[in-house]
Each structure stands twice: as structure tokens, then as C-alpha cells.
């Protein structure tokens, strides 16, 4: 049974978040020297609005449409044999062939790295991208695998007892990042 969490404080408000998202979008374009063969793939659930927001910023700046995909990693999780019941499986939808593309995986929070490990396994089952990069809004540290992000919105060191929750305009009608702490018994 997961412990109940309550909001401790807002660590990024909507204005800060908007600035960070704009910067992340420019960083993605800059490190790839343009948007040729670029594809943004959001990891369910909140990697999806992140990918959409970043793509919208890039499109505004570059005047070109950026293909967006959705990746569900449930079938690739490494803890399926230890958790019960099974998590709900949702669809993966990629905008086309990923062979030879530069795929930027997007996720809201980077923590243990296990989600990204699963996402990499899932992605290569669809083809062979030219390169795969990782963009995250929040890197909260405490990695359990040798995985790092290429584009990071903000770094906060958050202990395992606490958690970070991201809200997006598109899915939650508010835009903020909250630090969550366990509810005292």
C-alpha cells in the first residue's frame, strides 16, 4: 500500500515553469542543430503533456511541425513480478517510423532511472533511432541505474520518503511542480 502524500510546498510556480519549458525547448533545438528528423516521445502519463508543450514551443520558434509520440512502458517494467495486481496497460502511439530519427524521450520527473531503462527497451522494439536523448522537467536525484538526462529543467535533491508531482495546463488545468510529503499518522 503506497503511503498517502500531501503537498508540502510548490517548488515551481506556473511562471517559473513556463520559463524553464521555453529554455528546454531551445536547448533541444540547439544541441541537435535544428529540428531535422527530430521526434519527441512522451512517456505516459506526464511525459506526454511535457512532450506536447516542448513541441509547441519548438514549432513556434522554428515554424515546423514536430512529430510527437506516446510511449507506454508498462509491458517493459522490471517490477511486474513483484507487484500485484497488474498495472493498467495503455496504448503506445508513435507518429511513424523511428529508424534514423533523433528521438527525444520526455518525462516529467527523473528519479531511479528504471522508467527510462524500460522506455529504452520499448523504443528499440519499434526500430533503430539514430540517437535517443532524454529531456526531464525535474531531476530529483537518487538514481538506481546509470542513466542521465540530456536536457534538465530543474534539479532538486528529494529524498525517497518524499515525492515530486508535476501538473500541466493541458492535463490538470494548473501548471506547477509540488513537493509532496507523507501524511503523518
Amino acid at each position, binding site marked *: 500500500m503506497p503511503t498517502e502524500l500531501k503537498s508540502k510546498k510548490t517548488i515551481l510556480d506556473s511562471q517559473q515553469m513556463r520559463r524553464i519549458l521555453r529554455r528546454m525547448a531551445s536547448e533541444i533545438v540547439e544541441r541537435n542543430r535544428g529540428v531535422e528528423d527530430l521526434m519527441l516521445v512522451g512517456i505516459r502519463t506526464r511525459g506526454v503533456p511535457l512532450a506536447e508543450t516542448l513541441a509547441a514551443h519548438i514549432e513556434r520558434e522554428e515554424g515546423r511541425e514536430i512529430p510527437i509520440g506516446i510511449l507506454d512502458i508498462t509491458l517493459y517494467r522490471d517490477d511486474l513480478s513483484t507487484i*500485484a495486481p*497488474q498495472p493498467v496497460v495503455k496504448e503506445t502511439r508513435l507518429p511513424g517510423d523511428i529508424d534514423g530519427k533523433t528521438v527525444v524521450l520526455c518525462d516529467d520527473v527523473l528519479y531511479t532511472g528504471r522508467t527510462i531503462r524500460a522506455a529504452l527497451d520499448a523504443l528499440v522494439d519499434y526500430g533503430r533511432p539514430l540517437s535517443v536523448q532524454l529531456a526531464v522537467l525535474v531531476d530529483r536525484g537518487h538514481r538506481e541505474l546509470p542513466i542521465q538526462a540530456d536536457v534538465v529543467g530543474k534539479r532538486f535533491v528529494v529524498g525517497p520518503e518524499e515525492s515530486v508531482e508535476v501538473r500541466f495546463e493541458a492535463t490538470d488545468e494548473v501548471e506547477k511542480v509540488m513537493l509532496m510529503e507523507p501524511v503523518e499518522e
Partner: protein
Amino acid sequence: MTPETIKPEVWTRKDLLGIAELSAEEITLILDTAESFREVSERPIKKVPTLRGKTVVNLFFEPSTRTRTSFEIAEKRLSADSINMSTSGSSVVKGESLVDTALNLQAMAPDLIVIRHGHPGVPHMLAGRIDAGVINGGDGAHEHPTQALLDAFTIRQHKGKLEGLKVVIVGDIEHSRVVRSNIHLLTKMGASVTLAGPRTMMPVEVEKLGVDVVYTLEEAVAGADVVMMLRIQLERQSRLLFPSVKEYFNLFGLTKARLKRAKRDVIIMHPGPINRGVEIASEVADGSYSVILEQVTNGVAVRMAILYLLSGAHREEG
């Protein structure tokens, strides 16, 4: 009760033995999960590592190509290790009792067992004696839950819902496990079911299951959204349930002309294998209304969903 408004609950059953005991929410959960698995079969690499290290035994005491192959493909696409056992190659022919077969299987610690048997209730007996999750792949004339689920999945794909549809099932109702599972499923999901066939093939008091019964195909098909034809089991024809194949086709064979009174967007289904010119004319089986081959494709996705859900459920007890 549209699929959207039902809150998907979590799967807690160790076994899938029949549709009769399932709730509408559980049925919806299986169908929704299957939607996600359909995509796996459309990829260049049709395999996910989800059930890696799990062992699934396909235990078939009756001949079956379609169901067994469908399960086997579903298992392999989920990376499970699957083992096929059929009667001809098993110790059953050496006189081993069913209980001993079960105990021997248990000793090899499989995670899931898919069983088909000619006698109703065998999967239930097995489920009570072993730790593995048991999936009923057809027991006598009792239930064939995975067939009913793939039928429902196919209907939902075409009609967007099950509620309020008129579904007609035609043929040998009495000896069909497919019909029993389908009646349970469709009535639970709010569809109306009409059965049609010769009186010799209609079980007495079947109306008590909440279905309509008619004895002519014309009457049955009128206004239908879905027409499901059943295979006439020619191998059972020694029992003389109808005078001749030709007469059966004349009265109950589905032809284009007979479909005229159905809804414009009617779909034609068949659990297979089909007998052309017996229960269904080739022009209908191969026609634009036919979704018979889609049923086969969907069968893999639905079975993947069931294997996935069951493989998580029974760990809770262990």
C-alpha cells in the same frame, strides 16, 4: 453503461473459468486491456518481455487448432515459455486420472494453465487443486470464455459499444459452449440476444437466460446489428439433428438475400472453422459484412490481455 463510464477495476481472480461469474466491470477491464495489446501484433517486432520467465501449459484434451494456436501466439508475444500437451501425447492414454495429471502438473510449478476438455467443469476442478492460474479454453458444452470475449471485442470495435445492440446467434445452440459464454457476456453488457435454429438444436427453457428464441432465420435477422453463425458439427451428424446438409442450408444457411432485413451496417461473425455452403454461403463469408478473420486477429490480443491480467492476480495469494 458505456465503456467510458465504467471505472476499470483491478483484476483479482486467479482463474478465468467462465463468463457467468464475471461482472460487467471485469469484462470491460479485459476488453480495454486487449485494446492496448492489439498494437503489439502490428509492430515489426511482435514481442514484449512482460511474461518473461513465466511458464504456460496448454493442456488440450480435445482437438483444437485455432484456439491452441491463438493462445500459443499470445504466450510467445508476451515472452512466456509455453508447453503444449495434447491427449494423444500424454499419459491420459496410459490411464492416468485427471486428478493425477493435475498433481503432476502442479509439481512442475507452471504459472498458468490453459485447458480444453470435453467435459464441463474440468477446468474448475483443476483450478481448485493447483496453484497455477487456470484459463478455460472450452469445457464440453459449458463455456468458452475467451471466444465470447474476442467476439465482444470485435463487436465493440465495429459498433463502439455492446449496449442496446441486437445480436443474433444461429445454429446448434444446444451443443455450443460459444453460445453459452456469449449469452452471459452480451446480456451482462446490455445487448439483446436472439437465438435461432432448428428445434432439435434448441435447448428447452433457454429463454430463462434472458434471450429471445425464434425458429426462422428471416425472423431472427430482422433489424440485427450482429449475426453470429455457429458451425454445424458435421461429425455429430450421426445423431440426425436435421435431415440433410442441403436442407439445413436451405432453412438456416446465411445468404446475401437473407441478410436484406438486417441493419445496413450489420456484421457477420463466426467462431470458425466455417463450413461453406452449410451454415454460411461463401458470398457472405467472404463479403464486406464479414468480420470473421478480424475475430481471429483479435483473439490473440484478447488472450494476451487475459494472460497478462491473470499472471498478476494470483501472486497476491501466494
